[in-house]
């Protein structure tokens, strides 16, 4: 029995081939079609953002109505979301009120989390040594230490061989780090192509087809 290919899969394959060929073959018609399809994708992504925000509201509303653990945080999220949405809808996203909320609430909170991140990373590095004490972990930590110490003069003193354009820090950043990063990026590139081709062939269907 012949297997039917769903319409959604046919659309994905067709659109995928047009967009892919548009990157490689410089043919005017193909370029225009590729541009139109990519613009549609961006518009749909913006709509998805709105749907996602409604989903976020729904999830937290259910947590509050079900009196689940820590639902007070969900209540704060719902009130904040509605308040910010109302501000944006009434006065515009670039109004003084909206900017005040952004500059005096969102930026400080996110900056605090960023500060917390530095502490988390420092503790995580120590925990990593307890979890897996091997050569790679030691090299990782030693490199991190060299890069941190070499970022600025230590108590105003430049350590010879560490700081400066010919120092150890610059050497690590320019040679082994770049070489390693390029190696990893080649692997990621190949993985990305493989994933794209699987979607193009209909073997991977992350769109419900």
């Amino acid at each position, binding site marked *: 029995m012949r297997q039917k290919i769903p319409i959604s899969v046919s659309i994905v394959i067709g659109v995928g081939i047009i967009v892919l060929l548009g*990157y490689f073959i410089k043919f005017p018609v193909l370029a225009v079609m590729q541009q139109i399809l990519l613009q549609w994708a961006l518009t749909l992504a913006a709509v*998805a953002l709105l749907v996602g925000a409604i*989903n976020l509201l729904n999830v937290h509303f259910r947590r509050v109505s079900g009196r689940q653990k820590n639902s007070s945080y969900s209540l704060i999220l719902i009130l904040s979301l509605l308040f910010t949405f109302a501000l944006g809808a009434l006065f515009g996203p670039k109004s003084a009120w909206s900017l005040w909320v952004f500059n005096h609430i969102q930026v400080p909170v996110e900056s605090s989390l960023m500060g917390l991140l530095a502490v988390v990373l420092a503790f995580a590095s120590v925990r990593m040594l307890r979890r897996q004490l091997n050569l790679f972990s030691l090299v990782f930590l030693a490199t991190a230490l060299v890069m941190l110490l070499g970022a600025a003069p230590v108590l105003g003193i430049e350590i010879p061989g560490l700081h400066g354009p010919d120092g150890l820090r610059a050497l690590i950043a320019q040679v082994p780090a770049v070489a390693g990063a390029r190696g990893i990026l080649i692997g990621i590139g190949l993985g990305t192509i493989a994933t794209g081709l*699987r979607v193009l062939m209909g073997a991977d269907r992350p769109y419900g087809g």
Partner: protein
Amino acid sequence: MSLENLAGSDIAGLLFVLVFLGLMISFALSGRKRAFQPSREIPAFDRLQRVIGLAVEAGKRLHLTLGRGGITGLEGASAVIGLTILERFARVASVSDRPPVATSGDGTLAILSQDTLRKTFKTIGAEGQYDPAFGQLSGLTPMGYAAGTMPLFYDEPLAATVFAGHFGSEVALLTDAAGQNDVLALAGSDSLPAQAVMYATAEQPLIGEELYAAGAYLKAGPMHLASLRAQDILRWVLVLAIIIGAGLKLLGFL
């Protein structure tokens, strides 16, 4: 289509993709006759397979987070891998009373995660178990996404969490939360800064392209094995090309 119109085309790039496609198809066809296995072991996937089985028995939930990269850019591929893992989660945990949950920092990914779960539950005849809340949007900014996902580690009895997608350094807050709650964290990303952070903070980090091998190791289909084999071959071709190129440059031919 005249040849003048094709000026500036990247024929070499197109040829590379076509060779890749040809290898994948030929390996998929040969794989039907003779099944082959991935050439090397990735301990993280072995551990994940074990934990998935135990999670169902222990009545714990599996969590997958898809990052905040979106699907329209290059970073979308890593999220597609995440959706493949989510499908495996849903299939295995369908008998559990705690279905898997997916979080993301992008609206498109949230919809796709819901769709993947809905489709999988429907396929296995457990459509009644599906709830749109299993695919959640956690936040829209990097820190908002991290802050929105972290409570899951404290409020839900999680057995394992998989990080598969595009992340920034904020992922450290999530992997740390997983570690503090004894949740197995298997983490892979297409982002280099995230990989560095994951190496230090996640229990089972996936380095480089290991994340893209997830489908092959979790038995998501013959095409995953075929594409992994094609990747391995083309990686060696590229390595040889780089070495030969460097040698020729050293000798002054380039």
